[in-house]
C-alpha cells in the first residue's frame, strides 16, 4: 500500500473501521511514515473526545485490577552496552517445517532495548481463542500441539491492542503459528520473529511476506517474550526499532 492509499484510510483507521487486512496494511505503512503517524495520532485524539462519556467505572473494578497486578513478568534486564555474537545460548534452529519458507537466521544478540508488551488474554478469552484456533487450524501439527499437555499459547498484540498473531509453544521447544492477521507485505520485505532471551532480542527466523504456516524449534533457551518486526527480505540481524506485535510467553 502506497502513501496516498494509506493516508486515505487514516480516518477510518482512527475509528477502528477497517477490516483486518486493510488495518494491517495501513498500520504497516504508518509504522514507517512520520507524516501519517502524526495525522493518525491527531485523529485518535478526536476519536478519544468522541468516546468520552461522563460515566464512572463500576465499584469493585479497581480492586479486581489491583488483585492482578502481581501477575507481572519479571522486568526485562537491560542489555549490556556492547556485545557481539552470543556463544552461550545455542542458536534456536529455525526450521522450515511443512512447506513454510522459514529461513534460518543466525543468532545474534542486538544492542537494542526492545519494548515488549504482554498478551493479556484472560481465561475466558483464552478459551475462546483456542476454540476458534482449533477450528481454523488446517495443519494437524498445530491441533496436536494445542492438545499437548504443558503447551503455552502466546498472543502477540499490536501497540493498539489488537491480537495479530497467536503461537503455541511446546515444552520440547517446538513452536507453531496458530493463526495470524498480519497483512501481506510488499515485495522486498518480510516479517521476522524474535524471542527475548535474557532481556535480548534473538532472531528465531523470518516468516515471509504473508505468513500462513510457520514452525520453529527453540533450543534450550526459553524466551520471555516473542515479537514480530518488519524487515528487508532475508531478515535482519538486529530488529527494527518498533515491533509490529509482541507478547509475553
Amino acid at each position: 500500500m502506497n502513501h496516498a492509499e494509506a493516508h486515505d484510510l487514516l480516518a477510518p483507521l482512527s475509528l477502528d473501521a477497517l477490516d483486518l487486512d486493510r488495518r494491517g496494511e495501513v498500520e504497516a505503512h504508518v509504522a514507517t511514515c512520520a507524516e501519517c503517524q502524526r495525522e493518525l495520532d491527531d485523529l485518535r485524539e478526536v476519536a478519544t473526545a468522541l468516546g468520552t462519556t461522563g460515566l464512572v467505572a463500576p465499584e469493585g473494578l479497581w480492586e479486581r485490577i489491583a488483585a492482578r497486578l502481581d501477575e507481572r513478568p519479571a522486568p526485562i534486564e537491560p542489555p549490556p552496552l556492547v556485545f557481539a555474537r552470543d556463544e552461550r545460548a545455542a542458536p534456536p534452529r529455525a526450521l522450515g517445517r511443512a512447506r513454510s519458507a522459514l529461513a534460518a537466521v543466525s543468532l545474534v544478540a542486538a544492542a537494542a532495548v526492545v519494548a515488549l508488551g504482554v498478551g493479556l488474554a484472560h481465561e475466558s478469552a483464552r478459551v475462546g481463542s483456542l476454540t476458534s484456533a482449533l477450528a481454523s487450524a488446517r495443519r494437524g501439527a498445530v491441533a496436536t500441539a494445542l492438545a499437548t499437555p504443558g503447551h503455552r499459547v502466546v498472543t502477540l498484540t499490536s501497540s493498539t491492542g489488537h491480537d495479530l498473531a497467536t503461537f503455541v509453544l511446546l515444552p520440547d521447544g517446538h513452536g507453531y503459528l496458530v493463526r495470524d492477521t498480519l497483512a501481506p507485505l510488499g515485495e522486498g520485505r518480510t516479517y521476522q520473529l524474535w524471542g527475548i532471551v535474557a532481556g535480548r532480542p534473538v532472531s528465531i527466523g523470518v516468516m515471509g511476506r504473508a505468513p500462513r504456516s510457520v514452525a520453529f524449534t527453540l533450543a534450550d533457551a526459553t524466551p520471555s517474550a516473542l515479537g514480530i518486526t518488519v524487515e528487508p527480505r532475508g531478515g535482519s540481524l538486529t530488529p527494527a526499532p518498533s515491533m509490529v506485535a509482541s507478547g509475553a510467553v
Partner: protein
Amino acid sequence: MEEIAEASDAQLVTHVARYSQAALAEVYRRHGGAVFGLASRVLNSRAEAEDVTQEVFLRLWNAPERFDPTRGSLRAYLMTMAHGRAVDAVRALSAARRREAADATRSFSPAPDVAQRAWDAVVSEQVAAALAALPDPERRAIELAYFEGHTYVEVARILDEPEGTIKSRIRSGMRRMRGELERRGVQGVEL
C-alpha cells in the same frame, strides 16, 4: 500521595514503570471511567466492558513503555486500546447476541477524580454539540463505525452507499469534528 495526585499523566507512567501501584491507581482515577464508558458504549455489556477495562490497565502496568508521550495524551492511548479491544470483541459476537446483550450501562459510584469527571462531562456535552453540528450523513457514518464497531465497508452496505462515499464522509466528518472541538475549546483531553 500528594505528589502522585499532582503528577502529570506522563510522570505517572514513569512511576508505573517503576511498579508504583499508587501511580496506576491515580491513572485509573483519572481515566478509568472514560475507558469503561467507551467500552460499555461499544459492547453494550457491563461485564464485557469491565473485562476490557481490566485488560487496558493491566497492559499499561505490564508494558508502560508502549505509551509514548510525544505522540499524544495518555487518555488517547488508553481509549485507543479500549476501543480496539471492544471492537474486536464486538465483531466476534453474533448480531443476535449483541441485541440481547443489552444489559446496559448505568453509572456507578466509586470515588473518581472529581475534577476529571467534571471535565469529562463538559467534553461529552461539547462532543454531543459538535456531533450535532455535523451534516447528518457524516454523523451517521461516524456513529455506525465508532460506536457500533462496523467497518466502513459495512457502513456503506448498511447505508446503501458506495464505499468511497462513506470513506470520504468519515474523513470529512472527522476533520469537521476536530474543527468544531477546537472552536469549543476541547482539543486534546489531557489534564
